[in-house]
C-alpha cells in the first residue's frame, strides 16, 4: 500500500478569473522509505506542494492521505498531532527559535509529548549527536554557523523519530561543503527507513533521491526521473 498519496491536489489563491493556481491537479504516491526530490523553477508550486504535504496548507481540492489517514479530514488540533507524530521539517532558513539553545530547539517537538525532562533531554542529545552537533548543544543559534544551524534543524526534525522528513531547499543557504554534509545526513536518514520528500533547485542534491518529480506551473511535468539505483556518491552539491 502506498504510504503517501496525493490525489488531484489543487491549491487556488483568490477567486474567479483572477484566481491563481499554485498547484493544479497534482497526483502521485510515495512508498514508505522512499527518497523523492521535487524540482522546479521558482514559482512552479513546489514549495506550496510541500506545505500541503506538511499539513500546513489546506488544498482547495483533492485528497492527501498518509498512512491511510485523510490528513485534511482531521481537525486543526489533530493536524497538529499529525505533524508532531508523522512529520519532521527542515527549512531553508533553518527556523530556529533565537532565544532557545541548540538543544532546546531540538527538543521543541517533544515539548508537548508526555515524557520526562530527562527522557526529552536524552532524545535531544541523541539527535544532536547523530548530526554531529552534541558539543554545540548549549549554544544559541546566533553562536553557530549556517551549516551547523541546518544540522540542528535536521536534529529537531528527527528528534521524535517521525516516519517522514519534509525538506524545503535544505542546502539553499549553504556552501558546497556544508551542502554535502547535509545531504549525507538526509541520505543516512533515508537509509534508516525515513521517507524523505525534498524540494530543491539543485540537480546535484536531487541525485541523492530515488525519484525526482518535476513541477511546472503547478503541475507534474512529464518524464519523472526514476533512479532505480541510488546514487551513492554524487559530486559535491
Amino acid at each position: 500500500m502506498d504510504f503517501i498519496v496525493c490525489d488531484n491536489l489543487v491549491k487556488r489563491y483568490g477567486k474567479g478569473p483572477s484566481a491563481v493556481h499554485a498547484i493544479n491537479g497534482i497526483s502521485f504516491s510515495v512508498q514508505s522509505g522512499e527518497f523523492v526530490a521535487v524540482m522546479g523553477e521558482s514559482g512552479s508550486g513546489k514549495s506550496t506542494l510541500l506545505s500541503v504535504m506538511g499539513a500546513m496548507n489546506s488544498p482547495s481540492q483533492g485528497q492527501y492521505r498518509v498512512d491511510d489517514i485523510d490528513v485534511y479530514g482531521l481537525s486543526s488540533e489533530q493536524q497538529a498531532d499529525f505533524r508532531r507524530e508523522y512529520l519532521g521539517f527542515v527549512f531553508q532558513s533553518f527556523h530556529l527559535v533565537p532565544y532557545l539553545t541548540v538543544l532546546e530547539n531540538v527538543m521543541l517537538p517533544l515539548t508537548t509529548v508526555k515524557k520526562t525532562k530527562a527522557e526529552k533531554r536524552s532524545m535531544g542529545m541523541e539527535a544532536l549527536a547523530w548530526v554531529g552537533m552534541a558539543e554545540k548543544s548549549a549554544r544559541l543559534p546566533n553562536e553557530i554557523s549556517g551549516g551547523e544551524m541546518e544540522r540542528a534543524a535536521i536534529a529537531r526534525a528527527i528528534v521524535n523519530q517521525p516516519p517522514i522528513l519534509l525538506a524545503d531547499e535544505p542546502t539553499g543557504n549553504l556552501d558546497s561543503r556544508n551542502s554535502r554534509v547535509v545531504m549525507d545526513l538526509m541520505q543516512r536518514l533515508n537509509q534508516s527507513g525515513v521517507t524523505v520528500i525534498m524540494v530543491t533547485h539543485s540537480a546535484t542534491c536531487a541525485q541523492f533521491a530515488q525519484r525526482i518529480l518535476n513541477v511546472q506551473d503547478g503541475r507534474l511535468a512529464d518524464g519523472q526521473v526514476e533512479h532505480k539505483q541510488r546514487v551513492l556518491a554524487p559530486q559535491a552539491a
Partner: protein
Amino acid sequence: MTIREIALRNLMRRKAKAAFILAGLVIGVATVVAVIGFAETMAHDINTKLEKYGANILIVPRADNLTLSYGGMTLGGVSFDLQPIHEQDLPKIRTIKNAANIAAVGPIVLGAVKINAHPALLAGIDFESAHILKPWWRISGQQPADKELLVGAEAGRILGLSPGDIIKVDNFDLKVSGVLAPTGSQDDQLLFTPLKSAQEVLGRPGEISIVEVAALCHNCPVDAMVAQLSEKLPSAKVMAIQQVVKGRMETLAQFKKFSFGLSVVVVLVGGLVVLVTLMSSVKERTAEIGIFRAVGFRRSHVMRIIFIEAGVISLLAGFLGYLIGLGGIWSGLKLFGHGAVSALHIDPLLGAGAILMALMVGIAAGVYPAAIAARMDPNQALKTL
C-alpha cells in the same frame, strides 16, 4: 523544554515589552489600591476615633413632657406618665439582631440628693461598662465599691469632698473613694456610685433612668440597631447620637464611589496597555509561532504560552502594585489625612483583591492576542521569515 519554560524564556528575552506591560498593570493596580485603601483607612480611622467617643445610642423612658439635661435628661420636673425602664429590660438589649455590634451597655439611675444641705445629683452606674463608655475618665483614688462614691471634679470642689471622706445621704453613710479629674462635661457635677447602691439610696430598686449603649464600630448599622432596640423596648425612646458621624461617613461613602469609578477607568486603561503590547508581541513572534505550529504545537499550546506570559506579568504587577499602592496610601494620609498615618490600615483582602484583579485584567487582555496567535496559519507564519 516545557511550555512554561518557553513562555518565561520569551519574557526574559523581551524585557522591554514585559516591563511595559508590567508598568501598565502596576500603575493601574497601585492606583486602585491607593484610592480604595485611602478611603478604607480614613473610614477605619474615623470609626476608631468615634469608638473612643463612648456611647452613641441613648435609651430613655418614653414620656411626652419629660425634659432632660443629662444626655438630654433633666430631673427638675416630675413626669407622672413617665414609664421607667426596669433592670429586667436590660437583657433584651443583647437580644437584638445586631447584638454582636454592641460594645457596652451602661444603665444609669439618676436622683437628686442633699449633701450638707447642698442639692446634688447622684448617678448609679455600672463601673465595668464605664471603662468603655467613658474612656476619658481619670480617677484620683479608687473606683467606688458598694456604698462608696466617685465625686465629679466640680462637685468635689463645691461640696469640699476628697477621697476618704464619709458623707451622709439620707440614712446611708457613703465613703468617697475617688475624685474624677475634670472632664469638661456634666460628669464634673455628679456623684457616682455603683448602680445597686444608688437604687438603694434613692429608694428606686430595679429602676433605670437612662441606658447608654456603645455600638459604633466599623460598618455598624446604627440606624438599624436603633430600630431593633425600639422594637425590643417599646416603652422606651431610643436615640442615635451620630448626625456628625453620619455626615462624615456619607462624604467618605461618596469618595469611595468615586474611587471605584476611577479604579474601573484606570484598570480599563491598564488592560488596554496589556492588550496592545501583547498584540504587538504576537505580531513580532509570527515566525516563531509558525515554527511551534509546524513542529506539532496545538492551538491550545500556543494560547497557553501567551496566557502564561500574561499571567506571570500580571501576578508580579498585582504584588508590586499592591506594595506601591500601600506607599500611595501612606503618602496620601501624610498629605491629606491630618495625622492619620498611624491608622494606616493594611487589609490583606485588598492585597489578595489587587493580585486577583491584576491577574484577571492580564488574562482578559491576553485573550484576544492569544486567539490571534492560535489562529495563525503556520504556513503563512513561516513565510514571514
